[in-house]
């Protein structure tokens, strides 16, 4: 048995479909090409625009720098003032020796007790003094006053370094006073 198929009709349909697809592809390609062209144009434009903007800002920076340069003496004075104030603040934040304690101890002495020497140094947390008391009563009176003073003036310890009695009945003594550093 012989079967005969005529594809002429299908051929025409295929050709029409191929043409449609071909036209569709060309249309899409054209659209994509145009769209991409526009995109590239925009990107290039943005590049140029950004470049110009960067140049303009650079010029503004240079102009502002020139303005600052003219005001440089003023700036240097301000920095000078700030620097001096920083250093001054640092100097004032630290205290020197406790001269208040030294003079305070000196004030404790009366006629019967003579302070021979009061010394205090910056890095020490104590002061030392030597004194001479007329007699034992003067000595005891002075020590009483000293202990009362110590309680009132941030003194942490009072140490008697030496006590010696002279032939005339007077007493010579050395005392160290430890205090809290300011």
């Amino acid at each position: 048995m012989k079967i005969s198929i005529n594809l002429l009709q299908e051929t025409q349909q295929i050709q029409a479909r191929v043409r449609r697809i071909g036209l569709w592809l060309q249309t899409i390609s054209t659209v994509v090409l145009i769209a991409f062209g526009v995109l590239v144009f925009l990107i290039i434009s943005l590049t140029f625009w950004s470049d110009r903007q960067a140049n303009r800002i650079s010029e503004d920076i240079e102009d502002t720098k020139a303005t600052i340069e003219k005001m440089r003496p003023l700036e240097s004075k301000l920095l000078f003032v700030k620097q001096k104030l920083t250093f001054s603040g640092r100097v004032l934040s630290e205290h020197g020796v406790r001269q208040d304690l030294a003079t305070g101890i000196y004030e404790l002495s009366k006629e019967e007790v003579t302070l021979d020497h009061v010394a205090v140094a910056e890095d020490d947390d104590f002061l030392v003094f030597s004194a001479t008391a007329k007699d034992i009563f003067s000595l005891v009176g002075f020590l009483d006053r000293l202990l009362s003073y110590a309680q009132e003036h941030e003194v942490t310890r009072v140490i008697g370094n030496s006590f010696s009695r002279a032939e005339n009945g007077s007493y010579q003594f050395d005392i160290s006073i430890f205090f809290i550093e300011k």
Partner: protein
Amino acid sequence: MIDIDLPSQVTLRTVLGMKKYLYFPILALFVVVGLLVFVAVPSIRKVVLLRQEISQKNETLRSLEQKVEVLKSLDENQLLTQVENLERTLPSRKDVFLLLTSLNGLASQTGVSLEQFSLAPGSLATASATDSSTNRSTAQDDLSSSGREAASSQLASLGVEVKITGSFEAVKGFLSNLEQLIPLMRLTTLDLSPASEETPVSLAGTTALPVVPEVSANFTIAMFYASLPTQLGTITEPIQTLTESEQGLYDKLLSFISFPASPSASVPTGREDVFAPF
């Protein structure tokens, strides 16, 4: 058996004729890929870099404009006065003359006699002189917000030994005012003892009413000075006007005891640029 009879119109050429529709899409594809690789991607990269650069430059410009505003807000005369006052408060060099004037002035004011005064200042003017100071320390850690080239300058001190005599109250007054004196100084050692018989009996400046001194004080003081910085910070570095605490400190320093130096004392002020080399 199936026998297919192809029509005479459907030939190989007919089928191959379809490719004419593909030329343009393929060409377009090549163009797109080419543009993408050689134009779009480099341009996008460049744009990204430019935007970053613009952003940074904008930041710099803003900072500079802010600096200009700060500088414009400064009162030059007031600043000059502050420079002069602070130069006296914390001299830029070992100003022995200023120190002597101040100690002498305080001695006169409190009524003590300035008996001995000794120091070894070394060279007084050159930068190397300031390096030979008795005590120095860097100030890098102290300059925080305003930390700039000024930090290259250093705080140093000059040790001075002084002996005074006078009544106890006078000596006490002298000592208690010492750390409130211009230029800034600090008492580092103190030795109090009764004055010897041989000590002079006249008070400084009041020779008409002699009194017998009761107390003698030997002490050392550290007179502070800070050398000028040799260079300014970069032009783009931001600056600030005086903060409230700095202004408060300045006002406090103004209340310190100051004795005017004679006009012959050279104070490096009034220069156009205080940081310019000598």
